[in-house]
């Protein structure tokens, strides 16, 4: 099925792969740097927008303009207003605080929980490993979003609840990653040396094993932050996230989703664009880091 769109290039019949590999390493590094810079810039802008929201935003987070409900973009309201007469642009900025904050907080928590479980499982092995990994299996026998949906609907929609929900859903993957690393680090001579010289297991794990297990975690975490934002927005869109008047991108899209059929784009398209941009920022950063790690390994 593939050859339909692939036109053979003349003059490259036999050497198709060779030049790609040689020139590839340098180009790959340059591409990785570009990705990291672009992703980093997007995220910096978003973080600044979030921090400076009270300064930049012309209206308050929940300030209602009674004269303008569902008004199209104008000089007063740069991106128009929603059905309640709240300014879309201002709310977009305030929402960045919640979206970025919850996503980063949740992934940080997931890394802590997951690393702890994976470290203990990988370091001790044996039945401890078996028990912990079976629990991880159960958590991973659902698609992640479904898991988030079930836990969120059962827990309620406070900000802290959402951090915990998203952390719980992501932690198993980190447990697996760290466990795999810990199993190989455990076999290193310096670990045996530390243990024989009387260092406690806890301290060996913390000071010698853990620091050497975190490389893959560093690469995956930014990618995961983007995914966490999508989960959060998805939950809010279904009404399982933050309560209604709170400014959050998914909740704003939900509020504006009814207007789409009537052709009112400004209530739901801008929050989605902000969400897309932030997730893309994390993805670019993560992809760049991954590409650089691979280029180094080659």
């Amino acid at each position, binding site marked *: *099925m*593939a*050859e339909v*769109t*692939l036109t*053979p290039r003349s003059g490259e*019949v*036999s*050497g*198709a*792969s*060779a030049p*790609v*590999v040689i*020139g*590839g390493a340098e*180009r*790959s590094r340059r591409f990785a740097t570009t990705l990291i810079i672009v992703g980093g810039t997007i995220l910096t802008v978003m973080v600044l927008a979030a921090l400076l929201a009270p300064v930049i935003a012309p209206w308050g987070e929940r300030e209602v303009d009674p004269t303008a409900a569902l008004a199209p973009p104008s000089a007063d309201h740069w991106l128009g207003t929603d059905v309640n007469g709240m300014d879309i642009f201002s709310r977009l900025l305030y929402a960045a605080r919640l979206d970025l904050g919850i996503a980063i907080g949740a992934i940080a928590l997931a890394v802590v929980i997951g690393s702890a479980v994976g470290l203990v499982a990988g370091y001790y092995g044996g039945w401890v490993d078996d028990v912990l990994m*079976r*629990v991880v*299996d*159960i958590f991973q*026998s*659902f*698609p*992640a*979003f*479904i898991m988030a*949906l*079930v836990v969120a*609907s*059962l*827990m*309620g929609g406070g900000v802290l609840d959402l951090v915990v929900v998203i952390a719980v859903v992501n932690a198993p993957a980190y447990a697996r990653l760290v466990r795999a690393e810990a199993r190989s680090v455990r076999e290193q001579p310096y670990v045996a040396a530390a243990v024989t010289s009387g260092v406690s297991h806890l301290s060996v794990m913390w000071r010698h094993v853990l620091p050497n297990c975190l490389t893959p975690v560093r690469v995956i975490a930014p990618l995961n932050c*983007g995914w966490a934002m*999508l989960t959060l*927005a*998805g939950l809010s*869109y*279904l*009404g399982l996230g933050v309560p209604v008047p709170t400014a959050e991108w*998914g909740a704003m*899209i939900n509020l504006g*989703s009814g207007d*789409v*059929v*009537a*052709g009112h*784009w400004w209530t*739901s*398209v801008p*929050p*989605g664009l902000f*969400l*897309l941009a932030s*997730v*893309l920022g994390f*993805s*670019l950063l993560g*992809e760049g880091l991954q590409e650089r790690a691979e280029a180094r390994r080659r």
Partner: protein
Amino acid sequence: MRLLRFVARRLVQLLPVLLGVIVLTFILVRILPGDPIQTILGPNYTEEDAAAARARYGLDQPLWKQFLDYLGGLATGDLGTSIQSGGSVSAELAERIGPTLELVILALAVALLLATVLGIWSARRAYRLGDHTIRVVALAGNSLPDFWLGLVLILVGYSLLGWFPAPSGRVDPDVGLTPITGAELVDALLTGNGPAIGSALSHLALPVATLAIVITAPLLRSVRASALEVLNSESYTAAAAHGLKERLLLRGYLVRATLVRLPQLAALVFGFSIGSTVLVEYVYSWQGFGQWALRGLLYRDYPVIQASVVVIATCYLLVFLIADVLQAMLDPKVRIDG
């Protein structure tokens, strides 16, 4: 024979995980806040009403008794009675699963085709402009909120252009479609109902496009990565150095070696699309399994929540098993130990 033994062993290994899922959901829905009985009683109920309703659904029994009853029902394929609708959960499930499978399978097929073609194309131009473009587009696709993409497609396809029908359910009622499987395109094809085929297709177009775009992105990235691995492998370099024709290299080496990974990828993406379908169905009011499960969750309908979670987990685990078997059949390097 060996294959059968492998499948049997893997199925046995699945049982404890599934049992864990069943126990966990059962306990979780009951200990966390929310009461299904209150959602069906209305505002002016008396204590007797509540007690009677509780007894009707067996919720007055001790927890261990409820659990044994539930397990007994599961073993005979009885998933209980929905607290919200009063109907049989198995019957509702059967009615809802067709539309969802239709959506997911069509989207998956489109996505697999697109991802294979674009992924291989991209890998062959690795680190050049075309490749970079595709990679950035795929990253953007990976970062798209699925439900928002659905809304944008509705905005453009229905509100602005008017090419597609309103996002309210499925085939038009006036085409007179006889339901057979619940998957309406299949039903229309089976009954040879021309107008229904057209209507089903036009209703399917936007949701399938939404889901397909979202799942093509991660697939494309994986296909590209594995194609690149083949291109850099010694066997491929040797084959190319021997002057094999471009066509043969492409078909015999690249496409084949890339396709070997596809079952695993498809399984992963299938899991992902189960999650997405809840959102996509909600956007297009698709009335499928995802929306049904979501309603169950929101109303704390215990039997519905339990059934949908168990069904999803079973599907998910089985799809991975099928993928492993397919891969073992496709890839001579993978040996099955019985």
